[in-house]
């Protein structure tokens, strides 16, 4: 009794959104020959007000795409920085409804910067899956990264998300075998998130090895979607190195740590530095 082949037949590929905010952003970046800077921040960290300010100012500081974390009490795939960020947000009363409000407010002022929600399934199921998807689409969310929803269990949700114009961004790990890719990518939309190493977020500094470039090359042969690389990007040099081999660079734990240690201005300064490094990379 082993894992069955992924069933992706029920997906309606005709509704694949080719004119989405994500697609437009990546197209514009290709014109500029520049990789995207994807910044991860936790919604409600350290509190709602500061989190709103940070979110609003991220694009100006150089973020091309924003990943907004939905806090969860037991983030088993995240390292200590993001777990603590989630704990701080929850202690200050953050909820899924408030996170969606943040996106709605942001969208009123910024019609172009894509926002991707990232998190775990349980709070979404408790909120109500259909209700969540509709509310996210209405608020102006562009995509979803659901850490603990593998494609095997995600067919129904992906189909519903796709109908609402929400991209299901697939995670591809170093352990993902080649034969698993086609089905995994079939549910994918927006971009592909390539996890740089086996580990949790922020657990080590990314060491750019030639093998990562090779494996991204292989990934590209199988999919036309842009490839983002994340986990372990902590500074401008690493960001620039990733920007040379990928379409997007994801920075999460380093930013979340900076926010916790030095506040909003300092976090924005880090984003500016990373954006400059990526700009100069190619």
């Amino acid at each position, binding site marked *: 009794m082993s894992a069955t082949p992924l069933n992706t037949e029920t997906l309606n590929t005709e509704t694949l959104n080719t004119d989405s905010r994500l697609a437009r952003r990546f197209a514009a970046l290709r014109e500029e020959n520049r990789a995207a800077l994807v910044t991860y921040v936790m919604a409600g960290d350290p509190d709602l007000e500061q989190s709103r300010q940070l979110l609003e100012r991220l694009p100006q500081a150089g973020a091309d795409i924003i990943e907004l974390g939905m806090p969860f009490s037991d983030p088993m795939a995240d*390292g200590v920085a993001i777990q603590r960020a989630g704990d701080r947000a929850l202690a200050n009363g953050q909820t899924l409804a408030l996170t969606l409000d943040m996106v709605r407010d942001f969208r009123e002022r910024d019609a172009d910067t894509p926002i991707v929600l990232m998190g775990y399934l349980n709070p979404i199921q408790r909120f109500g899956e259909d209700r969540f998807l509709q509310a996210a689409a209405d608020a102006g969310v562009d995509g979803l990264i659901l850490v603990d929803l*593998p494609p*095997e269990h995600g067919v129904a949700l992906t189909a519903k998300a796709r109908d609402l114009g929400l991209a299901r961004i697939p995670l591809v790990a170093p352990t993902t075998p080649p034969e698993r890719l086609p089905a995994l990518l079939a549910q994918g939309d927006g971009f592909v998130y390539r996890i740089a190493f*086996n580990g949790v977020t922020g657990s080590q500094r990314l060491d750019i090895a030639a093998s990562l470039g090779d494996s991204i090359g292989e990934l590209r042969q199988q999919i036309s979607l842009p490839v983002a690389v994340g986990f372990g990007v902590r500074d401008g040099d690493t960001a620039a190195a990733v920007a040379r081999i990928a379409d997007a660079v994801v920075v999460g734990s380093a930013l979340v740590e900076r926010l916790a240690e030095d506040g909003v201005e300092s976090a924005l300064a880090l984003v500016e530095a990373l954006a400059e490094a990526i700009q100069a990379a190619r």
Partner: protein
Amino acid sequence: MSSMTRDIPDENGFFGASPNNGDGNQQQHGYGGRYVAETLMPLIAEIEAAYDEARADPAFQSRLQELQRDYVGRATPLYFAERLTEHFGGARIYLKREDLNHTGAHKINNALGQGLLAQRMGRKRLIAETGAGMHGVAVATVAARLGLPCVIYMGATDIERQQPNVQRMHLLGAEIVPVHSGTATLKDAMNEALRDWVAHVDDTFYIIGTVAGPAPYPRMVRDFQSVIGVETREQLLATQGRLPDTLVACVGGGSNAMGLFHAFLDDDVAMVGVEAAGEGLESGRHAASINGGAPGILHGNRTYLLQDDHGQILDAHSISAGLDYPGVGPEHAYLHDSGRASYVAVTDDEALEAVGLCCRLEGILPALESAHALHHAGRLAAAQGPDQVIVVCLSGRGDKDMDTITRHLMPEEAES
């Protein structure tokens, strides 16, 4: 013996209707599954394939049986608790003596099985989470026996209240990593073990201690524990020529209960899982996921969980560290919903009372976990006639709990 109930879960790891086969209606689908990060997906598929191969391999089975007999000390006795029976004045109470296993609890049954599987797969390092420390001790024991290094993740709170087991694990050569995140108990230890696993996928085998986690763990752990029920069945048939009327076992994650229940799923035998009601279900301070929780997704499976209105996992509370977990094995969730088994809850105070009673009447010091089952068995026995037979899984011995028990039952001695 063909059966609907005993062949589950399905190929997607679901007990009950799978969301993959239906209309995706989350309210109606089954329990279990593989809700893990992509990094682990290929790994658990590999474990599942290796486990199915091992299960069908007579050489693996005979090695397992040999060690169960000569190392663990199986079969464990099925003991007629004559004085407890007299005390309650009703049904006859039998105790399945898992406390007499090597290391003092049923946990070794599973640790040994998974340890042998890890060895067969060529893994070089074992990791595990532990709450009360019994699973940690069992894994440390098996690691020593197999000559593999092991790392045990344990909540800082649990380390404090289970010192004897911590010392035993050290003596056995295990490395113990204290977990300070969250409530610093079993669920946090499990988060941390999963994180270790994600970072060491190439050489590490994660020995999950209960019938929870992503498929194939719930099924695999159940299978390794099912020796409890298989023996019970044979023993009662041999001595009494009959099957029991009722099975009673405590349920945290629920591995000893699944182990006892599984061999009887197709029989006309009632099954009762006893959850920890802590300071009372109405107090909110309990660990009763089925009686006081709702379905959700945690640690790789869909099951009943203690959670708030926003889907955040709540702290579990129980005097017994082994039941102090905010979830329950998915097969129990399924047995509950299908009505095949029933689930009740017993408070800290009631469990303590059962410890005292069992010590004085039978000369057996039960683990606080097992005492929850004993208490409910007493309630049932008193309401039934002597023609009825109740089997209680005495899942572990209470030596590890002496500090807690002394403080509550003999406060004057605890102070001196």
